[in-house]
């Protein structure tokens, strides 16, 4: 028996029921009503450059194969043989002509169609309809500026509608230059013994933790001639914005700051990202090109990134008490080699298993999870009230519903949408019922 869903997340009073992070029943429901209905990031175009190249990933806990087809299109289907359910492909990535099951040999082409069944005539007396028994296709597949997303729900709105008012903010990351982004080869994959929502929410909504959680990294990373102080990293929340989308996406950034990117990943990427590159200013306009600094973001539910630092990652759920992080470094394809190299090094030093910032995030998330083993801890609501009732939606420079950068409106939006989806609300209902009460008009 799981508790009444509508009481788990109280966006009106800004409280969270801690059972959303630990309860097995809620987790099962989350796989069904959140992960099997949301648009989930699968791969970036540059990871599947040539026909036959594939990667394997997960949608929720369901394994999928994403493969480049001979005609240049992309297909995504369950990484599971339809005969007895064996995993079709056990590699992380590679290049192939087809996927042949290692149990009895059923063979599927790059698009997941069943093309060969051993002893079809003798064993099946030709009585099997191969067209019926292809791998299960990801129901909806769409690409936005090189980012490939999949969705299991045939009734889900198109990806562009789902990205909604977050698109303007997403473009500040993905649409800076002709040619877009590309992924630097290799990935960081590791495990946090904590619920995936802690990480997704933090990238969605939490600039507040940075000065405390990451104090040591700021000290260690600062170049000799740089002081990691409030000029680099403002402590005044009016010097930044946080944004929440009714679809649960969120972001936060400084509108004015020192060279915060220079501090974290190095001066060359900082200069490249917000040094006023005319092409970027031309494509994005001044505010997005120059006044969104040190940005964090999550596309609901589990795809997060840090524009400028240029890490992007998926928080794969592995039960209520564990997540697996898959992180990549991306770079504008037109960036010069030294920017690319500094980003690669800068990311492994900051946002990876060995990264000096992410280590401290992991400490927070895993310790929360341990505390939540307790009975009393599970009855004690958590506070998500920062900036409650103080959002505005008429900012001259930043569209949509915003607040100061130190705020939890994006967390309330994230958990609010999560609870709505968990309850099984239809897409029609979701379209007309934003997770947060309307902005109070002053």
């Amino acid at each position: 028996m799981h508790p009444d869903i509508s009481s788990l997340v109280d966006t009106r009073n800004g409280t969270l029921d801690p059972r959303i992070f630990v309860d097995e029943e809620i987790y099962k429901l989350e796989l069904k009503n959140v992960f099997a209905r949301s648009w989930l990031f699968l791969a970036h175009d540059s990871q599947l450059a040539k026909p036959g190249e594939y990667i394997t990933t997960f949608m929720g806990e369901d394994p999928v194969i994403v493969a480049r087809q001979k005609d240049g299109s992309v297909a995504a289907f369950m990484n599971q043989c339809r005969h007895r359910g064996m995993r079709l492909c056990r590699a992380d990535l590679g290049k192939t002509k087809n996927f042949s099951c290692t149990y009895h040999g059923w063979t599927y082409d790059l698009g997941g169609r069943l093309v060969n069944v051993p002893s079809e005539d003798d064993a099946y007396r030709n009585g099997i309809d191969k067209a019926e028994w292809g791998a299960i296709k990801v129901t909806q597949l769409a690409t936005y500026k090189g980012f490939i997303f999949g969705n299991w729900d045939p009734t889900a709105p198109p990806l562009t509608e789902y990205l909604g008012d977050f698109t303007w903010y997403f473009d500040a990351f993905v649409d800076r230059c002709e040619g877009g982004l590309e992924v630097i080869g290799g990935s960081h994959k590791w495990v946090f013994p904590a619920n995936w929502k802690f990480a997704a929410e933090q990238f969605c909504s939490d600039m507040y933790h940075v000065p405390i959680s990451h104090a040591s990294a700021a000290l260690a990373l600062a170049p000799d001639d740089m002081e990691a102080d409030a000029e680099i990293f403002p402590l005044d929340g009016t010097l930044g914005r946080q944004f929440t989308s009714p679809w649960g996406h969120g972001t936060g950034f400084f509108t004015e700051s020192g060279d915060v990117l220079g501090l974290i990943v190095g001066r060359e990427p900082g200069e490249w990202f917000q040094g006023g590159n005319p092409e970027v200013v031309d494509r994005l306009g001044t505010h997005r090109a120059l006044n969104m600094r040190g940005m964090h973001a999550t596309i609901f539910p589990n795809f997060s990134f840090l524009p400028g630092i240029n890490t992007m990652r998926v928080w794969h759920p592995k039960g209520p008490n564990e997540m697996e992080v898959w992180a990549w470094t991306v770079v504008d394809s037109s960036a010069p080699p030294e920017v690319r190299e500094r980003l690669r090094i800068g990311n492994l030093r900051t946002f990876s298993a060995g990264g000096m910032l992410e280590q401290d995030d992991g400490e927070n998330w895993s310790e929360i999870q341990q505390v939540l083993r307790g009975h009393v801890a599970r009855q004690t609501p958590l506070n998500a009230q920062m900036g409650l009732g103080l959002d505005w939606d008429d900012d001259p420079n930043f569209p949509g519903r915003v607040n100061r950068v130190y705020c939890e409106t994006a967390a309330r939006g994230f958990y609010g949408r999560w609870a709505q989806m968990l309850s099984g609300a239809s897409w029609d209902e979701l379209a007309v019922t934003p997770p947060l009460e309307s902005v109070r008009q002053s």
Partner: protein
Amino acid sequence: MTSQLEVPLAMAEMLLQHEIEKFVNLEALLIDDRRFEEWLDLFSDDVHYWMPTRTVRYEREIHREHSRPDEAAHFDENKRGLEERVARIRSGMAWAEDPPSRTRHLFTNVMVEAGGEPDEYQVRNNFLLYRGRLQREVDIFVGVREDVVRRSPEAEHGWLIARRTVTLDQSVLLAKNLSIFF
């Protein structure tokens, strides 16, 4: 029977092996006792300290298992990078290392070969690194280190590590971080 000429050669080889094994053991001691500043002194100023990532590949593509030098890595450090990591741990605010990890480095299978330069040797050793932390966190890392060590009479211990490549025998890391040294 060993010829009379070969005896001194074999002796020299044993002495070298002995010297290098002592150096390897000293390093384990310095890390496990958290004498990180002294540990840093074991590295040359031009050191490259690298731990590539590993992906799961089929046999026919196994040559692409390890990330390339221009791809993702767990560590890709010069001396300054190593110093920054030590400075972070010493800051008193490195929460993932405060309270600190309890590490124990077990080095074995030490193999020494002549290096590219006259004073350099290629030293390869397997390791098992146990890490306990807080009340009940445990991680075990197993892998191989391939070093280039340089005979350096002016260095305190007579040797400097000029290059290190660490290969971990895990793909998805089952630890929540790599906040320790290999």
